[in-house]
């Protein structure tokens, strides 16, 4: 059921980037989603993310993120006006509430709630895209040189997790056949029953860990300095994507320094597009951020681009 949420190699162009390039790109997206206040900028980022997610054939996975995001958005929209009094356009005068004071709901507070929800949706979409676009093993491999043992531990845990889930299910069935009812009894009784289950798991895992360690030793683990098997060769597409990410970051920093992307909600919300530079800065940043998508489309329709990147 959860398979769709995790990386699956579909042989898509957007999945072919070097993990360093993907990480740099997603980092820029994440940073911009945190720095920008202008709803137009945030909406643009969401649109870009939607196109990227479509590019990695991940709409089905994104659906789950969207549902959670929209729900959180509604919660923020509902809660924010109750605690923020800064808005000038009051749309509903509420009663006096102890500690909170008069419950006046302003349009700006609701607007701010909605935009905060939108920001949350963008951030969740960035993580969704990470899950779909980059092989976690390749990311781990990237850090192998710097933190080899930690990376190996994470890989081992990742590899063992599905096995442990399977074992847990099987042991639970065995226990049920020995007369254990996990759903019955008081909370304390249930905790005791589950402790039996985890006891079996723990004992078996300890025994298994010895065998894994033995297998590792038989393959010379710990016999000397390790090297790192690198499967990811950087290609022109990676340099282009990384360069574009950096340029987008610089453009965004310049824009923010000059007020492009900033937005005031209180006491009265700013106009979405106050001047031409606001649109120009957005256009420039988006252009750079669109580079992976442009390359992806270029590869689809242009043999020359495909051969060069």
């Amino acid at each position, binding site marked *: 059921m959860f398979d769709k949420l995790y990386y699956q190699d579909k042989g898509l162009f957007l999945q072919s980037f070097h993990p360093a390039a993907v990480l740099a790109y997603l980092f820029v997206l994440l940073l911009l989603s945190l720095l920008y206040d202008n709803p137009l900028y945030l909406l643009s980022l969401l649109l870009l993310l939607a196109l990227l997610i479509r590019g990695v054939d991940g709409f089905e996975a994104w659906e789950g993120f969207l549902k959670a995001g929209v729900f959180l958005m509604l919660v923020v929209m509902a809660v924010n006006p109750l605690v923020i009094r800064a808005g000038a356009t009051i749309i509903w005068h509420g009663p006096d509430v102890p500690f909170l004071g008069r419950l006046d709901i302003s349009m700006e507070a609701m607007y701010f709630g909605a935009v905060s929800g939108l920001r949350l949706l963008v951030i969740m979409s960035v993580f969704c895209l990470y899950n779909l676009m980059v092989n976690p093993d390749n990311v781990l491999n990237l850090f192998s040189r710097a933190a080899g043992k930690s990376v190996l531990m994470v890989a081992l845990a*990742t590899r063992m997790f599905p096995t442990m889930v399977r074992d847990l299910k099987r042991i639970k069935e065995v226990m049920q056949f020995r007369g254990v009812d996990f759903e019955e009894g008081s909370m304390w009784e249930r905790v005791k029953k589950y402790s039996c289950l985890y006891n079996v798991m723990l*004992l078996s895992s300890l025994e298994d860990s010895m065998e894994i360690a033995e297998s590792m030793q038989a*393959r010379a683990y710990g016999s000397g300095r390790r090297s790192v098997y690198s499967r990811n060769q950087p290609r022109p597409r990676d340099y282009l994507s990384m360069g574009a990410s950096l340029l987008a970051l610089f453009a965004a920093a310049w824009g923010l320094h000059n007020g492009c992307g900033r937005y005031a909600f209180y006491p009265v919300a700013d106009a979405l597009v106050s001047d031409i530079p606001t649109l120009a800065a957005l256009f420039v940043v988006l252009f750079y951020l669109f580079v992976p998508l442009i390359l992806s489309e270029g590869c689809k329709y242009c043999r020359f681009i495909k051969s060069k990147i």
Partner: protein
Amino acid sequence: MPLYKVENLTYYYPEAEKAALKDITLIIEEGEFILVAGGSGSGKSSLARALAGLIPDFYGGRVGGKVYFQGQDIRTMDRGKLAREVGMVFQDPEKQIVQTHVEAEIAFGLENLGLDNEEMQRRVAEVVCFMDLKQIRGAFTANLSGGQKQKLALASVLAMQPRVLVLDEPTSQLDPVSAEDILNLVKRLNEEMGFTVIMIEQRLDRCYHLADRVLLMEKGRIACDGSAREVARKTSRDGAPFLPPVARFFAGIEAPSLPLTVKEGRKLLRSCIIIERDMVLRPAAGKVGDSPADLAARGSAVCLKNLWFTYTGGQEVLKDVSLDVGEGEFVAVLGENGAGKSTMLRHLTGLLRPDRGTVQVLGKDVGRNGFKEIRRHTAYLSQNPNDYLFQDTVEDELLFTLKNFGLKDTSVVDEMLDRFRLVQYRRTNPRDLSSGERQRVALASVLVTSPGLIILDEPTRGVDFRLKAELGRFLRHETVKGRTVIVVTHDVEFAAEYAARIVMMSSGRVVSDGEKHEVLGKSVFYSPQLGKMCRGICDGVLTFSEARERIYPLLGNGAAADEGQGVMM
């Protein structure tokens, strides 16, 4: 200079009073294919670990004597250098894979050796090609099948380009097809690439004939050492438990030679006996089981009717499965991986509910009410006996089941401990026992409720011949007492020897169901070695007792010596 020279090797595991290896002296030449055979606890695995340098380095313990690899004491060798020379593949593929992806796993040993990236790329590519792993090169290791995992474990060792391959029961956890695949690869490595192979195996029918040399171990010592045929000849006089079934059969008679394969066995059989035309078609005399009339008279223990089941992923696993098992029957369910055997088992234990069809067990509708209705009267033994063991003592393990079902009479515990020869371990922690003893504890812990139905999932995996025979006899005895036994297994030899009825499944359907001679006698691939040997010569023979009963009387006068094929007796 020999590849290995072992001098008076004696080894004790930490805190052990009994030596695992006693005064082993051995010489191994380069390029040999050595099969190490013997019962559980005979020291096979310890010897393999000593040759791979893991004993005593990894385990600790006390060691006496020396192991020399190419003239150098193995204990003074650099571990990296030793790993480049000796590669070891273990029994359980699940417990030797470290990385999340196939390619990374193959490279794991190479990274440990500190090779440069270019060299690693080359070796990984070579191994992927040789082992035909292209399809799964980028796959997540946890999603691989058992056979693919073991192949990967072998690949990751081969990538290190060792000269010696030590294999500790590499096929014991695999289905017959995957096991054959691994054994063929090992044979190729020995014959075509010149690898020295040291392999431990329990299922001798699969690999006895592949070996140049056989070491038979007993109580930590090498009891017999020689070429496969020499060892076969020497051991054939002692009841021959460590011979393939074909050789074991001929060991009981004054045959001119001792065949090791079905082909040799058939040739010898044809030369030894005069085949009567009607004998080929005559059914076996010593059938186990009852006539259809007897079966009809029995009550139904398990009744599956038109069962259909599809997993949430959309995979249709059971397709119109119907099965009626009477009380006191011993049924073995055979079939390839993914045939639907385990899914069917989960239905008749009530752990899954059918999409369509009905499941009745011991007269209760399981599909509707789930496992709670039947579990008090059903014993279920999963593939891994460790799933059952977590109490401090063996006795507590049995009492745990009784307590859960609210059964007050604890005298049954003594009876079970006695029956499974566990009395001496009553106060022992079950995790301190051997694998065979653990299985007995697990079985005792589910049988304390005196169930009417006993279900076992792959009970013979990794079990030696003695324990297997013990289990088979026990289960048969239970059926005599009126209990129903259903065993899901890949072990055709076990099914042929002990079950009365065979259900064969394929692609979610029951493709064959009937008395074992009917089903296994017709099958070419799902047939025990004796069945294959007698096919067309003396049809209907599946077990030793049947072979003895039908073939022995025909031998003796026409035994023609055949110098070219087996071992002269």
